[in-house]
């Protein structure tokens, strides 16, 4: 990271500075930044108000953030993959779908959990079979819970059926709570 980029990044992340200053720093990072600013900009995107958020989205786009993060998802280091999958979840980019589906079978449970969480944000029906498999077969209860949450946002009968089957079989009472909440989403939508 060059020193100019580092100082723009500091301005962009510094919530005590005026918004206009931060916005112009983000624009510069979009024009001249390098892949290393994608993660901190992802953090900024995930916690900013509307204006700063939309400028950050543009900068991330220019930096091909989704491709950068998808590459990071193939790292040998589990912590790198976890950061990448969490950032992808925060961005909610539709083009991340194939990478996220692959991450549902990652050896690290936390990565699988946040891949399912990122799929919730995408609400893409093409993820349905993989999410059903995670819900019924993943050994980690938090991954099954995240898959249940994501399925609750897919308005498809197959999702509802899978959740009903899981509700009857799920051994972990905490995951049952998430499954029930997701099932309730179908009732809510039917009523609306």
């Amino acid at each position, binding site marked *: 990271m060059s020193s100019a980029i580092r100082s723009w990044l500091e301005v962009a992340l510094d919530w005590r500075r005026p918004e206009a200053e931060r916005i112009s720093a983000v624009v510069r990072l979009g024009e001249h930044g390098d892949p290393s600013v994608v993660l901190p900009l992802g953090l900024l995107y995930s916690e900013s108000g509307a204006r700063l958020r939309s400028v950050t989205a543009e900068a991330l786009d220019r930096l091909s953030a989704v491709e950068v993060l998808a590459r990071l998802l193939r790292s040998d280091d589990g912590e790198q993959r976890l950061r990448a999958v969490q950032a992808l979840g925060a961005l*909610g980019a539709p083009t991340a779908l194939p990478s996220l589906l692959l991450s549902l079978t990652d050896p690290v449970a936390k990565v699988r959990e946040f891949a399912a969480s990122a799929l919730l944000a995408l609400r893409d029906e093409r993820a349905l079979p993989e999410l059903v498999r995670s819900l019924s077969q993943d050994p980690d209860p938090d991954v099954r819970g995240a898959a249940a949450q994501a399925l609750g946002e897919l308005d498809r009968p197959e999702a509802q059926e899978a959740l009903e089957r899981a509700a009857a079989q799920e051994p972990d009472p905490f995951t049952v*709570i998430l499954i029930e909440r997701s099932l309730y989403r179908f009732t809510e939508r039917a009523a609306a």
Partner: protein
Amino acid sequence: MAGVQRNEFVQRLADRGGYVVVDQLPSEVQSALSQVGIQPQDLQRIAGSDGVIRGNTEFEALFREIDRRDGRLDQQLTTRGPSGELTAAGRIYEGLGQVVDANRARAAAEGGRRFTGEPSLEAVQNGQRLLELGATGEGVRRVQQALSDIGFDTPSGVNGTYDADTVRAVERFQREVGLTVDGRVGPETLGALAATVPPPGERLERSAEYDRMYADGRLDVTIAIGFDEHGTTPDRERAVLSGLRQDGYRPINRNSLPPAERDRLGLNDERWDPNARYFHRSFTDDRTGHQVDAVVRLVVAPNDGVDGREARESFRRALEQDEVVIYGGHARYGTGPDFDHLERGPGNFVIDGQGNRHGSPPPAGLRQVIDRDRTDLRSVRGRPEYQLLVFNGCSTEEYLPMMRDQRVFGRNAGNTDVIATTIPTSGATSGAHLVRFLNGVTRRESNNSLLAAQSGIEQRHRERFDDQLGAERARTTYTESGFLGNDGNRRVRTP
């Protein structure tokens, strides 16, 4: 007949850090006070959350109370009758004078020793100068050390420079003890500091009132998760459930509970909240060896953020019923916890309708659904018993002025400790924060250790995403209010 004017009264008692602890008044003063019709709760109201009357504002309020009841509203207390005998007002005035003198002497011999011999601070004490933004040197360093030793740390540490963080720390201390909040150290603030800090070489380890929390063998806790437009509400809910599982809690199914068990866990019809989930775990209180049932109510904003009415109502009930209430979610520009979309009204639990008094003001959409003068704290029938409130969101210390105002939050304010945030926190991690708080309050954890651990979670999160500046500031993510006079506090030698 002799009398005392308001200024004379206030100066005699408030100057040079004069203070009185309202529940330690000598019996002569107590009986004189009740003779003019001033009850202990009137004094508590004036004293505010720290239970101490100090500073011009609070002593002026006390003067007005006495003046209102000593016969005439004439801005003067009649202290001696026609034949020179002391009146009730006179006995109050004389008695309080002795108390503040004794307190001044004690403060000078204890906490005040930190400040003696330092010329800049002696000049402050004598009213010859103020310490304020830009000042440097040993005096500043001693003030910073004193603040840090009672829980008002600055992220930049004890560095001898009166920087913006020091201004904020001084403001927090002033708000806490009921002084005028100006971020500068004059004789009143230095006096109050001397009276609050332990002697040099010791710090005050603060704790919530665990004895009172555990006294009935049950610890009632609510964890409430607000709505987040950026979609992290499900992550928080999952993280909380996962943390409860790891810490050994079990979900409660009320229908299969035997009636005796239901009563023991406090889940009778009056307390039972059909819109919440409940969890239970027993733990042993290390100090007493007694078993305590931790009963956790989990309240979650609706996934779609459409209508947060039910969750908001559950939160309100939690404020009335539970010993510990932990909120995680947006601070909503200082307006209060919120359980639906930013621009929807029903899910807002409004603490301060004005919103941020320091940070960015509420946007137009939120303004439209919240009246500036609204505060839902007024409608909460506050618990008369002790309560600990934790607000885990962005800069929730903006809530404190309303939380601490006895006219707003009823008698609860004096009996409520609050933990709030000083900076915009990252929503992504607060599921872990919420369970960590729960974990701390089931093992008598002191604020020193609990808040350091919590700040550490925020710090590591920022480091993971290469936000070094944010990580630096996250060293003091939390601030606390109401703890200074707690029974469970103890003095600890510093290395």
